[in-house]
């Protein structure tokens, strides 16, 4: 094999490795990679690496994948052991996971199951019952039935006026469409007889969903993640996060049509599923690392029971900050469904003054309530 052939096959395997890790590298990028290598000093490992990286990466998340793939194909340089690059937090996550107490899904009461079986209503009222049933009581079959309801709910979300305009019939307050008026006036000898107007369109307002997946939320987490998935799939500009002790962005994991795979990917990405809760720390991360995505004009929905085991004071400060940068802040607490519920836990006491709405979020009906509120925003 000639040297050129060897390079072609190497670049081929580099592209294949990147693709295997989820990057989008097509033939076009591969051709660009060849052209790029021709214009840099190929004998320099560093220059070739940088050139290939510039061409083959199209986002910051690609860069880590690229470094791994590059080392795998062209051999790791001495002194840059993989250990340096690996995210130390990933390991911490595994440790935390094994140490932290785990709460299991409460074993469903056999008596209750019998009761369930005895009530077999017709299809319509079946759904009607499901609407008010607490997520924690759902059977697997009901989860599947609820999926369709959720998908329908998730399509409803907040909108806002856009700066983009479209032609409309005359209404008060709209701006004249000079271009069309002029066009029309050509027909009437320059006299603007026919007038045209433009009005702003509406577009979807960004929504940020932050879901608590710690131990105490386990009975609800599955259904709420399903709602997150449905929202990401149904609407534009939705960001999804999950947190226990740490915050994980799961928007990309939840994207895609395959429902089960998306949920599995999200569960994999969240290192501390069913672990402890540090809501304050998680929101701090949201404010700092994702402030730009979250900020200005977004509706933020936090789905959590408010059992915060982090430092007191942190949650309060971070909620205040979040409230100031968001358009609206909604808190969904499954415990709030209980008629005697009072926001007395330390976490809820700190959070409630900064929320615009406190809803239950324990059943389809309460998610409907959320959808209504979102639409009004």
């Amino acid at each position: 094999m000639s040297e050129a052939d060897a390079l072609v096959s190497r670049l081929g395997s580099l592209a294949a490795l990147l693709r295997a890790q989820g990057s989008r590298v097509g033939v076009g990028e591969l051709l660009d990679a060849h052209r790029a290598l021709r214009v840099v000093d190929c004998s320099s490992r560093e220059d070739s690496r940088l050139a290939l990286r510039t061409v083959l990466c199209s986002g910051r998340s690609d860069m880590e994948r690229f470094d791994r793939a590059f080392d795998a194909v062209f051999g790791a340089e001495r002194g840059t052991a993989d250990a340096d690059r690996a995210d130390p937090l990933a390991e911490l996550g595994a440790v935390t996971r094994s140490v932290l107490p785990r709460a299991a899904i409460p074993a469903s009461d056999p008596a209750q199951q019998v009761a369930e079986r005895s009530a077999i209503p017709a299809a319509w009222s079946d759904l009607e019952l499901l609407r008010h049933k607490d997520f924690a009581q759902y059977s697997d079959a009901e989860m599947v039935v609820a999926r369709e309801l959720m998908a329908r709910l998730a399509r409803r979300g907040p909108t806002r006026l856009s700066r983009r305009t479209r032609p409309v019939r005359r209404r008060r307050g709209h701006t004249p469409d000079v271009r069309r008026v002029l066009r029309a006036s050509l027909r009437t000898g320059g006299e603007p007889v026919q007038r045209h107007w433009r009005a702003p369109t509406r577009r979807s307002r960004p929504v940020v969903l932050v879901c608590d997946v710690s131990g105490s939320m386990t009975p609800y987490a599955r259904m709420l993640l399903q709602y997150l998935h449905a929202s990401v799939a149904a609407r534009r500009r939705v960001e999804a996060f999950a947190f226990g002790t740490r915050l994980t962005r799961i928007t990309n994991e939840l994207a895609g049509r395959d429902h089960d795979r998306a949920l599995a990917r999200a569960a994999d990405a969240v290192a501390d599923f069913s672990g402890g809760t540090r809501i304050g720390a998680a929101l701090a991360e949201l404010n700092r690392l994702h402030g730009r995505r979250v900020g200005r004009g977004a509706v933020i929905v936090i789905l959590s029971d408010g059992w915060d085991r982090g430092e007191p004071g942190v949650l309060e400060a971070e909620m205040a900050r979040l409230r100031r940068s968001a358009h609206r802040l909604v808190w969904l607490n499954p415990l709030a469904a209980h008629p005697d519920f009072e926001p007395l836990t330390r976490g809820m006491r700190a959070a409630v003054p900064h929320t615009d709405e406190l809803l239950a979020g324990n059943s389809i009906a309460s998610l409907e309530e959320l959808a209504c509120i979102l639409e009004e925003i």
Partner: protein
Amino acid sequence: MTFAELRSVEAASDALAAESYLADRPLALAVHLAIVLEQPLLLEGEAGVGKTEVARALATGTGSRLIRLQCHEGMDLHHAVYDWDYARQLLALRAAEAGTGPGGETELFSRRFLLRRPLLEALESEDPVVLLIDEIDRADDEFEAFLLEFLSDFAVTIPELGTITGRQRPVVILTSNRTRELHDALKRRCLYHWIDYPSPERERAILHARIPGVPESIAARVVAAVGRLRDHGDLYKLPGVGETLVWAQALLALGSEGDLDQTLGAALKVHEDVVRVRERKVLEGV
């Protein structure tokens, strides 16, 4: 130095340095590739790391024209490419009525009444051009879709005039603040580079290059202080290179009375951050 002379990474780096923009090697290489491969370069990075400055320095350094398109929401063809001068068109119509000028549709929609916006300007320019499409993440999806087309064939179609093709491919630099994820298709048309915060040595060099005459004592102090703030990890907004420059200028202006703590507002713009830094004495000993 013209684009044709920028034949190596070092030349690109030198051209930027001549305009007091000290690029590290990865950035210089990305710029070099953008010129040689004639592909748009997408720059991302935290606020204030000098994304926009790259285009400005490159334009001045190569003696080419900088044409800037500042993106905003709802931007459409008439903001970005062309528009018609309606007022003059109406006047011309009236004049035609009075029999003193041309007034037919072809005359009204001719180049006489065409307003060139940045993208058309870049296409028709005689001189070499650096086209800066700033903060592309602020524009909406519809504009992104149009841009995609524009960047792949460097031609625009004006219904009344026909298709206009560029004389040369301008060097295109896009910047994004990542307020939202850009469309994959657009990203794939572009080369990509993430601008990181500079190392302390480089940041000191940048200070000396941008503020001639700044004493090393001030430069070293400010760079050390900014480094501490960035490492602190508990701040809402980290200071960028722009803030470092302003901070050094503030200390320089105050002379011997200059104090890091008093001028903290040059670097931190969030009240909680300022309070936190003072409470925890982050800057102690700098």
